[in-house]
């Protein structure tokens, strides 16, 4: 649960930190990848199809995300943030209809590949292999992101652009292209989350909205623009949800929102956020 949300939240946070865009439509890309992956399993069967989808579906989501950034979001930079949110909302409406048109109204669960079915007993519950797989992917991505951002030259450029896009532009880095690349990369990350999640939770209409709001809670708790914040945030949200389900199943979501409001009141920019990135 926390794992795929981390992938989504990390992408969201990355876009906000670097491109300064609150991509409300992020979860739609997540859902898009899940649907595409489902189509792959239909076409090639559950065994091979899933792995095709695992590799290709996030890439398709990423390419589409980059295209959308170039075509729509890049036109509203510097016009305040409300046009961005409105554009993203329009995108959500459109993509949701695309899902309805192409994949119908019924939720689509991806058939489990042989290797990932089954699970291990752990602390009284069972941890399915699909969950372990999701955790592994998320952990690998978290490590990869860390190494990328802090150990490579490209990562340094990304951090520079996040800190001050104008100066970064001035020293000869094409920030516009960087923005598109980051957007595409973040959508790829989100798509990966969708593909991993689709094994446990079916892709469904309106599911993107639900997951979007949870991802937002994570990013807000962790702090916008902070990858570490996203990681801690998804752990907190995962734990709170699990505990909430144990204690008072129906109010798990209420706890989450109350927690978010409390954190925002005390630390307006989240646990790891910086004030006023604008």
């Amino acid at each position, binding site marked *: 649960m926390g794992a795929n949300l981390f992938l989504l939240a990390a992408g969201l946070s990355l876009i906000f930190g670097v491109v300064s865009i609150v991509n409300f439509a992020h979860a739609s890309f997540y859902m898009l990848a899940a649907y595409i992956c489902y189509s792959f399993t239909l076409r090639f069967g559950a065994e091979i199809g899933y792995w095709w989808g695992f590799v290709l579906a996030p890439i398709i989501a990423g390419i589409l995300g980059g295209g959308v950034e170039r075509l729509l979001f890049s036109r509203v930079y510097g016009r305040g*943030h409300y046009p961005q949110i409105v*554009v993203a909302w*329009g995108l959500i409406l*459109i993509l*949701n209809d695309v899902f309805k*048109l192409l994949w119908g109204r019924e939720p689509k669960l991806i058939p489990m590949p042989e290797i990932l079915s089954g699970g291990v007993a752990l602390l009284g519950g069972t941890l399915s292999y699909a969950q372990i797989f999701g955790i592994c992917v998320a952990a690998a991505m978290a490590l990869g992101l860390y190494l990328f951002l802090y150990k490579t030259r490209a990562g340094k450029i990304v951090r520079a652009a996040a800190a001050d896009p104008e100066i970064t532009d001035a020293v000869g880095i094409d920030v516009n292209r960087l923005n598109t690349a980051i957007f595409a990369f973040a959508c790829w990350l989100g798509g990966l989350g969708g593909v991993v999640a689709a094994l446990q939770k079916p892709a469904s209409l309106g599911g993107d909205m639900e997951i979007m709001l949870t991802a937002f*809670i994570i990013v807000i708790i962790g702090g916008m623009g902070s990858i570490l914040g996203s990681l801690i945030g998804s752990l907190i949200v995962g734990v709170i949800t699990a505990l909430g389900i144990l204690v008072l199943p129906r109010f798990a*979501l209420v706890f989450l*929102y109350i927690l978010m*409001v409390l954190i925002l009141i005390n630390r307006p920019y989240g646990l790891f956020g910086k004030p006023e990135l604008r």
Partner: protein
Amino acid sequence: MGLLSELIRWIGNRPQRLGVILIALIFIIFPFLVDIFWIRLVAEFAILALFALAYNLVLGQTGLFSFGHGGLFGLGAYLLAVPVIKGMISLPFAFVTSVLLTTLMSYGIGWFCLRLTGIYFSILTLAFSQLIWVAIWKFRGITGGDDGLIGLKVPALFASPRYQYFFILAVVTLSLVMIRIINNSPFGFTLKAIRENSRRAAFTGIHVKRYQLMAFTVSGFFTGLAGVLFAIFTRGAFVEFASVSKSFEPVFAAIVGGVNTFSGPVIGAGFMLALSHFIGRFTEYWPSVSGVILISVILFLPAGIVGTIASLARRVGGDREKVQGQGVKEQ
């Protein structure tokens, strides 16, 4: 005779007054000419227009992008529907208490949210609205959860769609006039000053946060009123009233109509309703149509429909109105 010539002189001073009177006459006469479907549609339009106008007090007038008005709308509806359906208090009493409580709540929410600025403000308003939505959804015993509340008993007066229409029309018209007065009062101009440049406004001695909070509260008052009317209109309350989609309805209306105009949100609301009712009849894919419209308006008509028409008219009609300052916010 004297009255008539008086009327003609009154109109003669400002030609647009004739338009207002004509529109008022149309709204009063037409329910006697058409069937219930249209009466109900126009009543819904009036409520939505009020919602959009209330919202635009915050977005267009003060320059704050709130995401949480769906929550306030739902709050208004449920604060009316719950006590009345449970038989705790009568409808007229609940009408007043609901609007007052929603206003109070929006003061509280605004107080918290306005500690933040920019995008963080928007997100915190969304968080509060989601909190309201989740609370409505989960406290089944009181709110009926996702089944909603139905069977709101209304006084015999409202039983006829036509009388109900006139009641809604009266409340909305009154609110419209009030919002108009607020917009053009010193208070309204202070809000505009904050929107244009909040730092400069602060330098002139305006307590920016206090004015923003007042604007948010006033907006919450009218939003609650719209929610209450909608609960009466639908004879119940549903959890969708507080959803994110609901929060986006006035955003759509205000932006498509034009945020810097008075009539923009009203026109936008009509546009939106027409879209969902008539396009919705041909295809189930009308949300994507509205998505395309929304994106196109943001990219190509940032001033909205009314704002664009107004500036075109101004260009055609010469610069007569330029004396009122650049970027005239009239009409």
